[in-house]
């Protein structure tokens, strides 16, 4: 057991006074991240200004065997930055400078606390932007994006965080600073940069990131299509891809999310549609117009009941506003909602949504679905009321069942939000013991004492054994009717 007062004293000798937060009332704002159902008060919060201070903090924590939980902007949705009661919560929020924008090499060097959108804003005068755009981009930090390998609505064409990061400066748990990757397109040795990206702060602390910038497309255009059946909408997506079109964005919403969004932002969505698709094309003027007319034709042939092209940029932004505000919109129609993040092979969409519909009846909880249709990433939003005893637990059980369904149809329990604390049990459904054990061994290569974000992302084999005992009734797996992948 570490004593809060004593430790605070030691950290205050190491860091400026305002960098050490230890009074109980000041610790409360840090007790959760974007997943507020999980809360813990950390022992101490540290807010260093520099990478050198991060080195010093880590060396100290390593020596004293104090757990360290890193945190960016705290917008994560899987409890990855849930504090450790006996540990330090290390906020990178003050490492928030854009260090360089290199127009010639089309790169930006930033600190981890820089907000995602701030990079594009800084690059805009040079005609460049940073492609990954998670919905939380006005608030979320680049460091957090790296930790989660964040996605967004333009991944299909422009990739995930991983595809847009060139170099990371990492501080190991014992305080050594290392450079992974570089300004060139590859680096010598094993590709540790890919391993660190998406590792949820379990392997080291990122203190600097070199990202790739792209030219801002000359033209963007979006088509909205309405469908009276969600499976027809899914088939239309497959048809667009089959015809060789790679849209910049391809999003789907079901009726409940359409209605919630329409009430909230008045995007002009058809509220009687079973599903809508938003398909964005970007490039140069002539080519965009040509591709848009092909997309319209495909959508019409695929059974859309209505196809609308945004008349001007204002309408385009409005079409997107509905989608980008889907989560808060759902937040308005229910006291609480629980956001899931499974990915499925797109062809399974109809079946998965049908089964989610059945689960919804069984649990007695409504569920709105928004879908990054281009890359199969499904976000069911389970509506519940935490004030009703037992409803949160029901929502969690419902969510868990959805994720296990995603695995059963050949997908994954998390496409872009991370495992964190939230999906740790479902990891047991996706991976076998040998694979989990390999993950633990990899962790120990970087962090032999398991001090970095302990207990997150990778379940212990014991935990899985207990979880399995709970879930496998009479030796039967869930969804026995499905072929296992």
């Amino acid at each position, binding site marked *: 057991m570490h004593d809060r007062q004593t430790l605070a004293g030691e950290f205050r000798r190491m860091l400026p006074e305002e960098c050490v937060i230890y009074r109980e009332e000041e610790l409360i704002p840090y007790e959760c991240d974007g997943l507020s159902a999980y809360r813990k008060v950390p022992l101490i919060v540290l807010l260093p200004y520099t990478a050198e201070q991060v080195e010093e903090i880590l060396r100290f924590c390593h020596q004293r065997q104090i757990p360290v939980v890193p945190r960016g902007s705290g917008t994560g949705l899987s409890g990855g930055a849930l504090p450790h009661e006996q540990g330090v919560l290390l906020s990178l929020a003050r490492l928030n400078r854009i260090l360089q924008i290199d127009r*010639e090499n089309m790169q930006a060097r930033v600190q981890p606390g820089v907000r995602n959108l701030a990079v594009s804003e800084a690059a805009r005068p040079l005609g460049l932007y940073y492609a990954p755009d998670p919905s939380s981009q006005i608030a979320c930090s680049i460091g957090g994006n790296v930790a989660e390998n964040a996605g967004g609505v333009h991944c299909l064409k422009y990739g995930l965080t*991983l595809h847009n990061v060139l170099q990371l400066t990492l501080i190991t748990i014992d305080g050594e600073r290392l450079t992974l990757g570089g300004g060139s397109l590859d680096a010598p040795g094993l*590709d*540790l940069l890919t391993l660190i990206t998406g590792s949820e702060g379990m392997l080291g602390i990122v203190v600097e990131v070199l990202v790739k910038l792209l030219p801002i497309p000359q033209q963007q255009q979006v088509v909205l299509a309405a469908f009276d059946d969600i499976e027809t909408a899914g088939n239309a997506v497959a048809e667009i*891809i089959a015809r060789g079109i790679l849209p910049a964005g391809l999003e789907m919403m079901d009726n409940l999310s359409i209605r919630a969004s329409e009430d909230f932002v008045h995007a002009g969505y058809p509220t009687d549609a079973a599903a809508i698709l938003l398909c964005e094309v970007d490039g140069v003027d002539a080519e965009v117009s040509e591709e848009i007319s092909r997309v319209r034709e495909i959508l019409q042939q695929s059974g859309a009941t209505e196809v609308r092209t945004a008349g001007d940029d204002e309408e385009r932004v409005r079409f997107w506003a509905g989608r980008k505000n889907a989560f808060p919109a759902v937040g308005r129609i229910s006291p609480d909602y629980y956001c899931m993040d499974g*990915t499925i092979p797109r062809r399974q969409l109809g079946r998965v949504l049908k089964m989610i519909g059945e689960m919804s009846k069984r649990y007695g909880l409504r569920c709105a679905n928004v879908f990054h249709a281009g*890359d199969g990433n499904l976000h069911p939003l389970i509506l519940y009321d935490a004030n009703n005893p037992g409803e949160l637990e029901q929502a969690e059980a419902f969510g868990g069942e959805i994720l296990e369904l995603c695995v059963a149809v*050949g997908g994954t329990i998390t496409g872009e939000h991370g495992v964190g604390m939230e999906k740790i049990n479902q990891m047991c459904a996706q991976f076998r013991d040998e694979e989990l054990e*390999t993950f633990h061994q*990899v962790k120990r290569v970087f962090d032999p004492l398991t001090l970095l974000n302990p207990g997150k992302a990778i379940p212990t084999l014991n935990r899985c054994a207990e979880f399995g005992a709970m879930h496998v009734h009479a030796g039967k797996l869930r969804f026995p009717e499905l072929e296992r992948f």
Partner: protein
Amino acid sequence: MAADRDCSETLRRAVLDAAGESRPLQLMGHGSKAFYGRACLGDPLSLAEHSGIISYEPTELVITARGGTALKEIEDALREKGQMLPFEPPQFDGKGTIGGAIASGLSGPRRPWGGAPRDLLLGMKLLDGRGQILRFGGQVMKNVAGYDLSRLMAGAMGTLGILLEVSIKVLPKPPQEHTLMLSAGDWAAARPLLHKMLIEGVPVTASYSQGEQHKLRLACSQQRVEQIVQRYGVEAVDHQVDFWRALRDQQLDYFTQKEPLWRLSIPPAADIDSKEQMLYEWSGGVRWLFSARPGSEIRSRVENAGGHAILFRNGDRSGEIFHPLHPRLADMQKGLKQVFDPEGIFNPGRHYPDY
């Protein structure tokens, strides 16, 4: 005739036997990249028989194939549906397997715009040095469950395990590609124009510069090409499919030289202190240099420019081939080797001398 064979069990037994005796194995696909990497000892273990496309869903943009599947077979299947492997893997001597392409981490001319093997790799089934068959990643575009261990295998030179199956993201093949010629003197003189075109969003999919010859490959409509020709004062020529393939497979005359061939990977706009002739690809991000100068001298010049150098062909294959690592990174690498291959049986020494 495409073979479709699952040899997982045979390979697993071969690995268990070798591990039991701590006997090294040299993993071999078609052997088209046998020249690449450090020379290593060990009993050859052929992986080429373990082949066949397991699933290909054009509308999902994903192909899954056994590691020994010929790149040609994959390319043919994709072409039929108007798709392609975006990293344009080289096929030296017209051969190569998908497992070898991933393990070597090598990409062709499209790399800066289409991605590298590690970017396109979605998941895999790996046979590790304990004889375990492990699945990492998946067959979907987005997957952040667990550490991304499948991508770690890209470029690991087969030192961590056997790639039994790989799932790869594919993309639509551009309906039209065109070749442009820039006449602008040498590389230093041509570079500003090339970079201007890139920043202004010209849809480049490959670049080549050697001496005073500069070519670009574009993916766009004929009409757009005409606009580009006018705007930048460049010349459009025939598409030259064969030229770009020869560049990819190093069949151009430039590559027939006998001196050690160095692959220099540096930030595209960086200058290297060198008077020697080089061939430039990836808008300057990769440069090919034939040189008998000491490796240490070449490496330090490239390092000063923010890059690294690989002794790609020829020269002393038992010496230092890949760029030396920071000691701590080398330790981490050895630690990872220990996780996947505790007996050290897979391609020992092929990547770095000590693992």
